[in-house]
């Protein structure tokens, strides 16, 4: 009898080991093997399709051509940095010469006048989107909370929100350009008009998901929480900061994740038209150039744009997991 039991336990352990092995294999397959095979299939189909597309700017670029362009963009970045060093050296020499001649001269260091490289443009785009998104958050979240808390305010403001929400950034741009040109007439060299225009356009277009999601989140917090606040006689400010906001964080962050995705897309379009020196301008300039490498470079930029958008989304997700009480909603 004891032997039978021990054999049974032995078999059970074997099965459970097998079962957990099976689970591990399925986890690996789901998280690694399947995505990898998807990417591989894409990389195999891409050059086959590309060979059959002949545009007036040359054949549609294959992965090899795009990879080559990544290399050349990086090489251009390095050579531009060398030119920058030489520029400052020349400037020092010139200033020294002039000071020797004219002791009253106060030398200034002029900023490098060369072109921005691809990596510089990535940096500019990231800074612009972050600032635009922060501006939108600063406006949208308080506004959303106010709308969520007051049904009257919601009813009066809702039609306006619904009409402003679908307006494309390309329609906002001329308006924003005119207003910024009028109000920011003497631009400071480190904050050019095009930067302000792109930033405001991004903010205008990406604040709507945050407003709506915040207001829905606030309006649908558990009645129990509201009752607790009433029982404890919390002041309005305490109610908002200790009950409302923590309770609606999952929804607020959902809105923020949607918004950052929209902000990144809008940014590229806004940069193209406002000529802010970021990735959008890079794509537009390459298109204007129409050289035989233009398509490859545009595709390289598109891949970088997509990848950065992915990273921004994942970043927002990480922050959400850290801050939110509802871990389940942050799983996707």
């Amino acid at each position: 009898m004891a032997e039978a039991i021990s054999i049974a336990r032995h078999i059970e352990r074997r099965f459970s080991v097998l079962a957990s092995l099976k689970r591990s294999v399925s986890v690996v397959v789901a998280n690694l093997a399947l995505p990898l095979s998807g990417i591989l299939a894409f990389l195999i189909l891409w050059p086959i399709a590309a060979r059959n597309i002949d545009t007036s700017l040359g054949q549609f670029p294959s992965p090899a051509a795009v990879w080559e362009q990544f290399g050349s963009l990086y090489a251009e970045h390095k050579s531009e940095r060398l030119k920058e060093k030489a520029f400052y050296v020349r400037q020092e020499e010139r200033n020294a010469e002039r000071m020797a001649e004219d002791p009253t001269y106060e030398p200034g260091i002029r900023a490098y006048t060369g072109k921005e490289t691809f990596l510089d443009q990535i940096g500019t785009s990231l800074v612009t989107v972050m600032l635009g998104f922060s501006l939108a958050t600063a406006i949208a979240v308080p506004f959303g909370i106010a709308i969520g808390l007051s049904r009257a305010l919601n009813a009066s403001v809702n039609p306006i929100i619904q009409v402003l929400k679908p307006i494309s950034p390309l329609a906002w741009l001329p308006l924003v350009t005119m207003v910024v040109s009028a109000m920011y007439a003497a631009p400071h060299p480190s904050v050019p008009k095009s930067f302000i225009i792109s930033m405001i356009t991004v903010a205008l277009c990406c604040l709507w998901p945050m407003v709506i999601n915040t207001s829905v989140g606030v309006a649908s917090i558990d009645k129990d929480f509201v009752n607790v606040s009433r029982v404890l006689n919390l002041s309005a400010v305490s109610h908002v900061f200790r009950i409302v906001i923590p309770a609606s964080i999952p929804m607020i962050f959902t809105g923020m994740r949607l918004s950052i995705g929209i902000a990144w897309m809008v940014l590229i379009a806004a940069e193209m038209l406002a000529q802010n020196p970021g990735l959008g301008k890079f794509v537009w300039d390459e298109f204007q150039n129409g050289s035989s490498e233009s398509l490859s470079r545009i595709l390289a930029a598109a891949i970088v744009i997509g990848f950065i958008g992915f990273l921004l989304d994942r970043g927002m997700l990480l922050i959400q997991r850290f801050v939110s009480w509802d871990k389940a909603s942050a799983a996707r």
Partner: protein
Amino acid sequence: MHSLKSCTVCPGFLLGTTARVLACLFLLPLPAVAGDLGWPEKDELTIGFIKLTDMAPIAIAYENGYFEEEGLYVTIESQANWKVLLDGVIDGRLDGAHMLAGQPLAAAIGFGTEAHIITPLSMDLNGNGITVSNDVWKEMKPHVPKMDDGRPVHPIGAGALKPVVDRYRAAGKPFRMGMVFPVSTHNYELRYWLAAGGIHPGYYAPHKGDISGQTGADALLSVTPPPQMPATLEAGTIHGYCVGEPWNQQAVFKGIGVPVITDYEIWKDNPEKVFGLAHEFAEKYPNTTIRLTRALIRAAMWLDENDNANRPAAVKILSQSNYVGADYDVIANSMTGTFEYEKGDKREVPDFNVFFRSDATYPYYSDAVWYLTQMRRWGQIESDKPDEWYKEIAAKVYRPDIYAAAAKSLVEEGLADPSVFPDFDSETGFKPPQSEFIDGIVYDGTKPNAYIEQFTIGLKQGDLL
């Protein structure tokens, strides 16, 4: 640069007196004096350009260090289109720009935005071409006389295009052509060529609010920015265009169109682009303006040096993506003296782009007056003006005094030979009568109204739409 401070004052004084007398005659602002050129007042500048081969002097002045040698730290920015560029100069975002010769003049007369823009330097001569789509060329070709080897005889007049335009109109389809800006050299050259072949390009009627320029037109002309022209031709939105290089050769390379004539053949050595600055800028920063002109003159000299020996190096610079960006081979053609018409039909056009030879950089009043006469011819200037008015506007915008100051200071430093410049003491600013036009009509800049009367198609004295 240091030797300038010890120059004698005498020649400066003489120049100043003559200039002041002339200034009273032409109501000019007080011109700059080259005798004692100081440091630039404003040394961080932004210069705008459009992606065209003839922005070369600006690129060369930067890459060869001429700007830096003048103490100027220049950021060069490409602009989206001519309107953005013009607005940039007017509102101060740009300190100076590569401009169409007609833009400062149109701004002076108030066609489009009104502003006082001056130009101390002409950037180049020639450099444009007219391209038609493959289909239009196929229909045109039978009407073009051929040489013994079967190739078309050049120059091809618009008379060969007229039957094609008539057929389109008879079929009810509008015949559309593109040019880069309503006051661009391309617009006036295209209209000149069409009118010489008997095709009416349309009138403007700004006093009636009609600025489309298509009143009474056989061929409808509209605006497209230069880099987008080949794409627009390919899409079929337009059937031909007039634009500067490299966009004509680009069409041949990509197999989407055929250039039929260059503006060198329409008017030999015609003025093309100028370097434009706001009048307030030049008044506030006279040294900076003269130094900018000096650097650009040096760049222009380098481009034409030794029989165009430096052109390949210049093309390498221009093909960088932050300048023109088109492929080296596409830009190289016109810059090195050949022009490809039909695919495979390459002809020698050594002076397709002229930057310094033939006094290309001197801002002649007669060039300004020609543009004004064409503006009157097509109705952008809606009523008759006396000859004096033409000359006054030209003198308000074109500033040979600044050019002379810059040139003289270059000669004094030994950077240029005095023989390459016109004789400043005797130069009136009006070239002798020019006859090398495709229709043979003679242009005398001192008699603009008489010139306007000579055209078959175009507004005449007393005409008001």
